[in-house]
Structures are given as C-alpha cells and as structure tokens.
C-alpha cells in the first residue's frame, strides 16, 4: 500500500471539509477500498473514515417507509428485526453478500457508491425505486447508477441514506460466482401499486439495469409461471471467463423465476 493519511470524521461537515483535499477518498467499511489500496489499484493520499458519524448509521422503519443510513453494515441490514418484518427480501440479499466477516464491516453506502456491476444492492435499490439521499440532494436510484463503477455522485458528495417504500411483494435471487460470491446474475423483483419492477445485476455490460421483458410478463401475472417461455436478449450483456452473454441471458430468466417464487413464497 502506498502511504496514506487517515482522518476520522466526527460529523458530515467535518467530512465535507476534509474532502476538499485533492484526491481524498471516503472510507466506509473498507471492504472494497482497502483491497484496492493494498494492490495499488487505488492510491488516495487521504482517506476520510465516515463510520463514526452517528447520523449515517441505523435503520428506521415507519409504516411502509424504510430508511437505511449509509454506514449501516450488511450484517445489520440482514439481522434487523423490524426490516425483516417489513421487507425480508432486502435482509435476505444482505445476508448473502460475501461472507460473515465482510458483512460485519461492509456498508450499504459504500456498496452503492462503488456501484460494482456485480454488486447486490444496486439491483434492490433500482427495483424498489429507492431514493438516494446525499449531502447535496435526493435522487432516484435510476438517476444514481450511471454504469460500470459510475454514479451521479460529485466530488465531495456523501451518500447519507437510502429510502424506499415497502412494496406489496419483493424477492431476490442470485447465481453467485462460486469464488467471490458476487452475482454472476442477480435479479430483484418488486410488485406494488406502481406496478412491477425487475432489476438485474451481474449481467449488464453497463451495470445494473431493468429488464423490460421480465417486467412486462410479470405485470400480467406476478407468478413464476408467467416467465415460462420468456427470453431476454443477450445484447448488452457481459461475456467473460465465467459465463457468456447467452448464458447470462438465460440466467436472468431463471433468477427472475426464483426471485418471484421467493416473493410469493
């Protein structure tokens, strides 16, 4: 690792001030940033630890409205009793990120700010039509996720929380890469008053996306059987040593079926 200066921010304004330093990076759970620094793929001269800012932590469930602070760990999301009662699909998703040690440190804010094309949370937030609350504005997940490792975040802008309304039904299924546990294809489905949304991670060439053919079939009938015979195009899907675009296109349908079964189970 190259030399770095560590700062522990006590408040959001403190963090914003520190962020004025050239090339400074925010540090949350460190489960992505520290491995990148160890292998010298990232070399920020300064890191600003956000995890001691009380305002960024915790989960509130009030009626159908859920707010999760950016520095809330995957383990906390997986095990929160109120959230499990309101929206078990997101707890299930969090409980399958990486491994127990990664879940003890990694956070939802870090995960979405990083926007890895195979990360789990982006699929949930896009399907749940979540709002991302930052230090500067509020924006829809659709506007936040911009492509491979790209988001709408500007320099110095901090994700404070994510907020969503619990849908009538939701489910997530992923085909994990056997080595890393990242999604080789993961599908989050949500069905509510506003209709059906199905978001796919781990498969798109340009990161997380909504699958219209899946949504159209499920809008007619929100059951796994409705996806029988549905196919999704392989254009724009990733091909790599793990799987071809055609294989991933098939996985989208299979994972969507399993996600619907989990949602209606």
């Amino acid at each position, binding site marked *: 690792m190259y*030399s770095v*200066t*560590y700062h*522990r921010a006590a408040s959001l304004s403190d963090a914003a001030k520190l962020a004025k330093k050239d090339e400074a990076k925010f540090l949350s759970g460190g489960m992505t940033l520290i491995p990148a*620094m*160890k292998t010298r793929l990232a070399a920020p001269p300064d890191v600003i*630890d956000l995890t001691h800012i009380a305002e960024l932590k915790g989960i509130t469930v009030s009626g159908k409205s859920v707010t999760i602070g950016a520095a809330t760990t995957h383990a906390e999301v997986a095990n929160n009793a109120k959230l499990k009662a309101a929206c078990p699909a997101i707890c299930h998703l969090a409980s399958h990120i990486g*491994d127990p*040690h990664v879940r003890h*440190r990694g956070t939802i804010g870090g995960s979405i700010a990083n926007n890895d094309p195979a990360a789990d949370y982006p699929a949930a937030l896009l399907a749940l039509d979540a709002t991302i609350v930052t230090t500067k504005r509020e924006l829809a997940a659709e506007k936040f996720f911009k492509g491979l490792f790209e988001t709408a975040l500007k320099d110095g802008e901090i994700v404070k929380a994510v907020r969503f309304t619990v849908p009538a039904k939701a489910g997530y299924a992923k085909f994990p890469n056997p080595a890393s546990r990242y999604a080789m294809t993961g599908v989050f489905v949500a069905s509510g008053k506003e209709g059906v949304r199905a978001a796919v991670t781990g498969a798109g060439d340009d990161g997380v996306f909504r699958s219209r053919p899946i949504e159209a079939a499920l809008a007619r009938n929100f059951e796994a059987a409705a996806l029988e015979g549905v196919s999704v195009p392989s254009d724009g899907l990733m091909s790599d040593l793990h799987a071809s675009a055609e294989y991933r296109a098939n996985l989208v349908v299979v994972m969507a079926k399993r996600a619907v079964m989990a949602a209606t189970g």
Partner: protein
Amino acid sequence: MSDVSLTVNGRQVNAAVEDRTLLVHFLREHLGLTGTHVGCDTSQCGACVVHVDGKAVKSCTMLAAQASGSTVVTIEGLSDGTGLHPVQAAFKENHGLQCGFCTPGMIMAATDMINRHPEGLDEATVRAELEGNICRCTGYHNIVKSILAASQAMAKGKGRAKAA
C-alpha cells in the same frame, strides 16, 4: 503517523503507527502476536480473522487506525489461560487441522459463528458460514465436525453454568 490506542487480549496498547499499517501487521509486527496469519492479498482467505468489538473481521482489510478505540481479541487471547478454549479443544479432538495455517482464522470465525447462533448450528449453516475461510489441506470435513462439536459443548457448558 497516527496514535492508536486499543485493547488487545485484555491489555491496553498505545502506539504511533504509519497510517497505512493494516491491523494484521500491527498485531504481528508491533505486538508480536503472530498467531494471526496472512494468506492472501485479496481479502478472501480468512487466515487473518480476529474479533473487533466482538465481531469477526478480516484484520488484513482494516487499518490499525480504523481499529483505534476498539477491543480486539486474537487467537492468543481466546482462552482464559487455564486451558484450551472449547473451540480450540474441539479442533484438537476432531483433527480439525493439518498444516494449521488456516486454523487461527478458522477458530476465530467458528467462535463468532457459535456466538451468533445461540439456537445451535447444523452442517449446512456451518458450511455456508465458512464462506470467508479457505483451507488448503483438510477438505473442510473435520473443520465442520469440530465446529459442530464445539457448538454443542458450549451449549452444554452454558446449561451447566445456569444450573449452578
């Protein structure tokens, strides 16, 4: 440089370290606690697992400065000093190790796993929970057996403590 102050295996430790010092290097090189191992560069093997504020974490993926103010327990501090910790004893009895390289991380992960599952463990859960720990020797079979045995022994121990 950062001044770090933490409790390691019950002992208060204060030191000035380079900010880039990983917790695992702080433990091994500054404190001489070489029971915690480094088995990879990619945060995947779990040989470095220690408990920070009661939770299993990969000490190779955390700066010592991030851990400042925390309480850390390593494999050296697991037993109370009077004998082996029940998880250590179970690994010994069930032949849960061969070369031993992964063992400190396995035992720290196992202890955390048992603590998080007071209702008890079954084989499928143990295997799923071992996702973050790699062993090159054993094929996991005896590790799983050791953890199941330890979980039962610790549940019984608790029962006895309550009855007493």
